[in-house]
Structures are given as structure tokens and as C-alpha cells.
């Protein structure tokens, strides 16, 4: 604070707010962290979120065993043993076998490759596209913004599962097409989030300073604005992975997803649907459990990231 400014009583303290106390304790006064320690702080806060850390470990293991399936899977892919047929979990087949005697653990690992790949690709594409379109709309305002908002309005009005199913019917159901279709609908949400963030950051002084020093709009977006919205983007991208995995499995379950011989967890559940109520019901347990664990883990990580980026939101 410059000393020539009149100060009524004394300088205002640079205080933090104790959330635990639930009221203002402005004198806690921890000094603002320097920029270089921001990432260290971020990691410290993320590591403090126990469920997020456990989830990250679970996901890493899941990725390793799914994509290393050819080495870790107990049987070969599609290895049939018609003599045993569908039997429940046992020492030889931990997750049991299906009607063709295929080991379910092996099948789940290979199907996981597809589910995870689709989830990651959709989230990646949707995030990149959504971030840039959202940033452009927020930065340039007026026309691009109106266009973006009206388009998203249109898509919000129609049940997304309907659009997806019709689109798959039209464009086909190989996994690349499904990824593109899911991403084509997924970018809008993240674009809205980014637009909102950009609108608020655009008004900050450092953007004015960059503009005054002659930086181009593209440079301002890339160097000054996007780094400041990386938190919400990362959180939403993470949650986008979970959403894409669930949506793909739902479509597959309804028969609109990947087609045999490609399998995903949703496809396995769709195939096993008829076993509900029979003595082969174990076929529905494990693919669903794999889905549940994956989505739960991804959501926890998203939660941990949110806490780490924005400690005020801890709730």
C-alpha cells in the first residue's frame, strides 16, 4: 500500500478466512503463496484428499491391467471352453465364465480397453474443442457468444440419449464414430464453463496490461487467460471421462454402442441381460462393478482436483 494514501486507522490486513471457524478471522494472515509454489501447494492439497489419492492408485492399476491384458489376463482373449459353459466364480475363473466358457475376468480386461479408450478420447476431444470455442466466445463476446449459447440451448432441449442414438443409427457404431459423436455433444458443457470463467477473467487488470503492451488476442487467450482457467477445465475434463464411459455403456446396453466382436463393459452387460433371474446372474455383476469402480474413482479424482484448485469450495 503506498504510504501517501490516507489510511483511516491502519492498513487492512491481508488475512485469510478460517472456514473451520465459520466466521471471519481476518488476522490469520498467512502470506500469499508465491507463484512458484502454486503447484507444490496444489499437490499438497490434492494429496490431502485421501479418497482422490486412493482413486488415482485404483485407476492406475486398472489401466495397467486392462492395457496389459495380453500379459496379465489369465486366459487368451475369446478362449472358449464349451465343456464347462457358464459357471460362477471359482479358483480357476475368478469372475466365472459365460455360456461359451469364456473367462469373464479376461473378457472384462479386454472390454475395459475399449471403455477406457472411449472415455479418455471423448473427454480429450471435447475438452480441447470446448475450451477453445468457449474461450473464443467468452473473449470476443457478442456474435460468437450468441451463436454458442443458442446452439447449446438447442441441444439442451432435446434428450441427449435421443440425439446420440439417432446419430449412431445414421453414422454407424464403430468405436471411432462413437467417440466423435459423444465428443460432438460433450464439448458444449465445457464450452459453457470456460466461457463463464473467461468472461470474469477478461476484466482483470493483467489482461488489460497484456493488451496495452500490444499482445494479440490469440496470445492473450493462450498465455494469460487459459492458464487461469486450467482448474475448472481439468476438473470438468476428468468428470467428462466418467460421463463418457457411462454414456457409452448406456448406449451399448441399449444396443446402439459398439458391435461384436468389439466389446465394452456396457456391451457385456447388454449381452448378459438375459441372465437376470437365472443361475448365470454372475455375468451381470462383474462388468457393472468394473464400471462402478472406474466411474467412482474418476469422480473422486475430479473432486480432489476441485479441492486442490479451489480450496474455498471444500464441502
Amino acid at each position, binding site marked *: 500500500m503506498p504510504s501517501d494514501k490516507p489510511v483511516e486507522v491502519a*492498513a487492512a*490486513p491481508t488475512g485469510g478466512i*478460517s472456514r473451520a*471457524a*465459520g466466521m471471519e478471522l481476518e488476522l*490469520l494472515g498467512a502470506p500469499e503463496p508465491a507463484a512458484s509454489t502454486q503447484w507444490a501447494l496444489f499437490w499438497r492439497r490434492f494429496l490431502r484428499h485421501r479418497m482422490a489419492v486412493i482413486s488415482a492408485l485404483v485407476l492406475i492399476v486398472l489401466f495397467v491391467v486392462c492395457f496389459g491384458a495380453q500379459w496379465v489376463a489369465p486366459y487368451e482373449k475369446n478362449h472358449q471352453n464349451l465343456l464347462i459353459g457358464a459357471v460362477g466364480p471359482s479358483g480357476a475363473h475368478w469372475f466365472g465364465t459365460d455360456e461359451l466358457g469364456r473367462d469373464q475376468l479376461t473378457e472384462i480386461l479386454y472390454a475395459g480397453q475399449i471403455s477406457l479408450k472411449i472415455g479418455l478420447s471423448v473427454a480429450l476431444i471435447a475438452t480441447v474443442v470446448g475450451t477453445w470455442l468457449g474461450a473464443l466466445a467468452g473473449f470476443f463476446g457478442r456474435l460468437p457468444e450468441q451463436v454458442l449459447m443458442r446452439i447449446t440451448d438447442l441441444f439442451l432441449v432435446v434428450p441427449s440419449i435421443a440425439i446420440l442414438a439417432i446419430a449412431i443409427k445414421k453414422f454407424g457404431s464403430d468405436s471411432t464414430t462413437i467417440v466423435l459423436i459423444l465428443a460432438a455433444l460433450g464439448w458444449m458443457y465445457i464450452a459453457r464453463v470456460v466461457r463463464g470463467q473467461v468472461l470474469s477473467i477478461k476484466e482483470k487488470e493483467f489482461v488489460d496490461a497484456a493488451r496495452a503492451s500490444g499482445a494479440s488476442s490469440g496470445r492473450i487467450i493462450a498465455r494469460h487467460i487459459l492458464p487461469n482457467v486450467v482448474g475448472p477445465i481439468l476438473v470438468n475434463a476428468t468428470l467428462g471421462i466418467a460421463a463418457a464411459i457411462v454414456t457409452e455403456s448406456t448406449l451399448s446396453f441399449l444396443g446402439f454402442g459398439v458391435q461384436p466382436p468389439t466389446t465394452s463393459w456396457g456391451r457385456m452387460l447388454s449381452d448378459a441381460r438375459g441372465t437376470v433371474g437365472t443361475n448365470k446372474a454372475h455375468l451381470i455383476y462383474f462388468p457393472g462393478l468394473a464400471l462402478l469402480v472406474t466411474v467412482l474413482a474418476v469422480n473422486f479424482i475430479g473432486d480432489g482436483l476441485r479441492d486442490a484448485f479451489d480450496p474455498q469450495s471444500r464441502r
Partner: protein
Amino acid sequence: MTEGESLDPLYLEPSTEDQRPAPTSVPLAVRNLEVEFPTDDGIVRAVDDVSFEVARNEVLGIVGESGSGKTVMSMAILGLLPASARVSGQVLVGGENVVGLSESRMQPLRGKRIAMVFQDALAALNPVHTVGAQIAEAITVHQPRSPRRTRRHEEGRQSTATKGPLSKSEVQDRVVELLDIVGIPNPGERAHQYPHEYSGGMRQRAMIAMAIANEPDVLIADEPTTALDVTIQAQVLDVLQRIQERTDSATLLITHDLGVVAGMARRVMVMYAGRQAEIGTVEDIFYRPRHPYTLGLLASLARVDRDSREERLYRIAGQPPSLIHVPTGCAFHPRCFRAERPDPCATARPDLAPVARDPGHRSACHFSGGLTDVTAESLRAKMSTPPSNTPPSDSP
């Protein structure tokens, strides 16, 4: 969701202090009050060994920077601190210690014998209820459920609000009367409006009306005018003063504005880092300050009768301390112009000791006796020659 012990926001520590109740004529006495909050980064001692009394019909001004513990202290008096707060010492309301009282025993006291006017009336009033309904609620929650069941501590106390259960229309009449007392025009209509339909000054008046609805013995006004325009401030202070004279309540006027204190209070307590720096009459504090922090506050006041272009405003060096790492010894020593470091200021915590020849005037400074020659004027004059010893950062 029953009212039980787990909801009790106060943590009772067995007190070794003398439990003898104060004379009942003192509406509010605070003895060795301490409030601590455990946080992730350490323990915050927001109020540190504070003692004072307020008599009937007396206004005690409490002055300090934001974060000096003023608001936490008033919350402690009302028993409204979060459950994580650790409170020790005594708060005697009419001689009865309310520290550690259960929620169910504290609740009838709040708004009835101790009432509070909050700082930000827009946030402090519930946006979805009309102003009238909120004032009416303050009355009805303290009505005996049936005439037979009067509460023990209310016996012998007779005021308009406690004679017995009021009918709905009587409550409504009282609400309109209260709004009229605090100077709200068209109180009959205004009672049916929502807080957002009021202006800032009117909202603050409505807050005051709500606080005095039950003619409390103790009135705590926490920065009642800070959020208002200067002209509105004067009006609201005027209302507060009229109310205070009318109800005879013991009033705590919490503010960081020395001007407000000078106009309304009879005695003043200066707080720094949760501790008492100095306490005395308005004349003691303004004309014979005996604490360097008080002197600094006075010297930093903008004065209308001076040409501020020629005279720079005094500014207390440094920043208020973190309450987690309060400086050793005297909490103010890193910012003090008079401190002798390390001894005694950085090592020994000064007592709140009586000032010679000023009865009731006490100061927590090792050198309070040696400050007689320093005035706010001389401090300002020193601004042109900055102090030789630059204040060190908070000592560990």
C-alpha cells in the same frame, strides 16, 4: 435433530477463577475471557485475557483494527461461536455466568437480555421474510408458551414484552411501534416490505428495532454504521443514541472509527491482536493516551480542521500480526515507535496496569508512564523523519 449437548457451541473449561458472582447491578461483566480456534495451521487465540464491565446506561466503545478480536468477543458473549471455538473465562450477564451454558439455556437469553445489532444489515436480515415478520419473531420467540410457565430468570422482570403472551395484533402493533421508534416513515406499510425494499440506512434502523424489541439489558452494536454513507451514519448513530438513553441498556459499541466512539461512548477500550491495549474514559483515551497503539490510531485520524496538504497522515508501521504467530512479549512491539527490544517489550507481556492519577484508566504498555510527553500531534510531526528502527517482521 434434537437440541442436545452436541449442538452446544461453547466448550466449557473448568475455571479456577473466583466463581463469586458480581453485584447484579452490573448488566455485563467480562472476566479473563479467552477464545481460541484450532485451525489447520495452528491455534488462533482471537480473544486473549480480556476483562471489563459495562454499567447500566453506559456506552463502552471498543476500538481496534479488523481482526483484533472485537467481533469474536461479541459472539462469545452471545454464545454464538462455532462449536470448534474454545472459550474460557467468564461472561457475567446480570451476575450469571453464561460461558458454557447449554444451547437450550442460552437461547432464552439471546435477544431478550443480550441483543445484537449486526454490521451488514442486508446480509443480516433474512431476504425471504418481511422486516415486520422478522421483528415480530424476535418478540414471539420470547413469549411464554403458556401464562403458567414463566421461566425462572424472568421472574421479577417486568417490561412491555414479558407481561404475558401477546396476541397477534398486539405483536403487530408493537412491531409498528418499534419501527416508528427507530424513525422509519410509514411503519405500518413498511413492516410488510422485504429487506431489499429498504434503503441501507433503513435496514440498519430495522436491525436496531429488532434488537431492542425486548428491551435488552445489554446491547451489542457491531460496526453498526460501517456499511453506510456518512450522512446516513450520523442518522443511525442518532437513533442508536436515543434508543440507548431510552432503554437504559448497557451498550457495547464496536467500531474501528474513533469518531463514532468519541460521539457516543463514555468509556473506550482499545484492542490489539485479541488483547486489551488500553481502557479508560473518552477523555483519558483521546487526550491522555498511554499506549503507543492508541497514539498511533489517533495520529492517523484525518482531521478536518487541518490542512492535510501540509501535514501527512501518520501511518502505523507494518501489518497487524497473524493471530497464530502473535509476537512475543507485547504483541504490538514490532510496530511500536517506543519499544525497547528485546527487553522488556519482546520478552515480557505487559500487564493492563493502572495509569497514575487517572482512576479507571489502564494501559498495557511497559512505558505507559513515559508517554506523557508524546501526543498525536508530535507523532504526526515525526512523519517527516521516519523512525530509525524499521520494524522487524513478526518474531517467531
